[in-house]
């Protein structure tokens, strides 16, 4: 190459200078590795914040701030033709799903900011515009599957039941009827147009193990946020409790 020198630069040093520089350089390297190892162990030993050492949790929270600020609700999850959906839908997790649901008494409870609660029947939900979606459902474990769901977009639900004021808050929280499973979701993700209060899978009512009668489908999040068998929906400015976040996982868990 044109600009390369003919040879690498040379210097003359005394034997003593070479010895000192070598010693110092090796000492610094040893120090670097020791510091890295001690730093690693220090992080591991820190008190836990929701199932993970505090320093890691604070990085996760910072990551959440960064990526939530980059979140653009006009970016849609890729949709597939409904025919591309897998008929054998993988079932993962059954927390909060003990016992039966009695449809005669089941209501979706929506806690409003004034303190009053809406009690909605399945018909109240089904009369709203329905949206079908086939998308690549992503599990935090690393697998994904193209599956077909249908329900009312959460954004339409908010409009229909005059929850505009509530939807200016920072989070929604969802809880199963037995309160065993619960998630918190940031509002921009909840209001993204592909987020559904879902009551159908593959064109039929949800199977029990997929969250009958109503579950959340939120394509911009990992599966851990797609709560099955919704009992209560509420709004909050602080982070609602989250089942997997308490067990060491990232709270945001979004794409």
């Amino acid at each position, binding site marked *: *190459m044109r600009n390369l020198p003919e040879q690498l630069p040379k210097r003359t040093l005394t034997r003593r200078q070479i010895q000192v520089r070598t010693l110092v350089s*090796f000492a610094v390297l040893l120090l670097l590795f020791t510091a890295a190892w001690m730093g690693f162990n220090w992080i591991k030993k820190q008190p836990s914040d929701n199932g*993970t050492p505090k320093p890691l949790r604070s*990085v996760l929270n910072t990551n959440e701030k960064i990526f939530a600020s980059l979140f653009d609700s006009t970016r849609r999850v890729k949709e597939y033709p409904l025919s591309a959906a897998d008929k054998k839908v993988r079932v993962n997790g059954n927390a909060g799903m003990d016992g039966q649901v009695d449809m005669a008494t089941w209501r979706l409870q929506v806690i409003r900011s004034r303190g009053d609660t809406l009690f909605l029947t399945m018909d109240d939900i089904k009369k709203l515009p329905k949206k079908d979606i086939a998308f690549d459902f992503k599990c935090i*474990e690393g697998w994904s599957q193209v599956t077909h769901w249908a329900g009312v977009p959460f954004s339409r639900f908010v409009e229909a039941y005059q929850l505009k004021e509530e939807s200016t808050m920072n989070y929604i929280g969802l809880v199963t009827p037995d309160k065993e499973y619960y998630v918190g979701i940031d509002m921009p993700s909840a209001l993204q147009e592909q987020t559904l209060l879902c009551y159908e899978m593959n064109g039929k009512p949800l199977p029990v193990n997929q969250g009958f009668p109503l579950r959340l489908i939120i394509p911009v999040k990992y599966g851990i946020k797609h709560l099955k068998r919704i009992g209560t929906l509420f709004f909050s400015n602080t982070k609602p409790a989250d089942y997997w976040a308490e067990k060491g996982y990232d709270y945001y868990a979004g794409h």
Partner: protein
Amino acid sequence: MPQPLKEVIVKHPLAIRWFHWCNFPILLCMIWSGMLIYWANDEYRITLGKKEVFHFFPESFYKSLGIPFRLAEGMNWHFTFMWLFFINGLLYIVFTLVSGQWRYLLPNKRSFKEAFQVVLHDLHIKRTQPKFLKYNAAQRIAYTSVIVMGIGSLITGLAIYKPVQFGWAAWLCGGYKAARLEHFILTIGYVLFFIVHILQVIKTGWNNFQAMITGFEISKLPKTKTDAKSS
């Protein structure tokens, strides 16, 4: 009595040595935490026809390294150290470009032809190898490739981490599933690079190795008067 003088060749700038040795523990942490994550869906195998030749990874491998049931922990380390990996890599690239060190590093027109000669030399088939300044042709190709791989890990990683917000990355990788496989293959690539790198460093000897720490190589040629006036 005056001390005897020795000639040294100034080889690696201080900044490059720092980037190199910082990258080692950072990448180690990324690979380790990556394995904690991969374990939760360890779907990759090498197959011949329908026969499984190798499963990434065997149960004994997981057990000996204490990998199972640590997905959340793995993700948390991974998404912390990704910043260090990114910043260190970015600083390295910027430094290499600005300082002109890239001229020693990037392959040139002759490199691809010469690299073959280097390989023959390293395999003891040929006695001599083409002349080089800092890195020989094979080193230029290998070291440049590993940097391109680093950029690849970043892009495939983004495609897995935020496939919607970084839709362009997911598209570039051929989708979410493809990105995960590519991310994995790149990691296997680092491990293979590491093995060859260590063997080559051992083979080349102490003077070369210590130069990555001290920055200089001790010149083996005796100083003569003809040296000074040549060229």
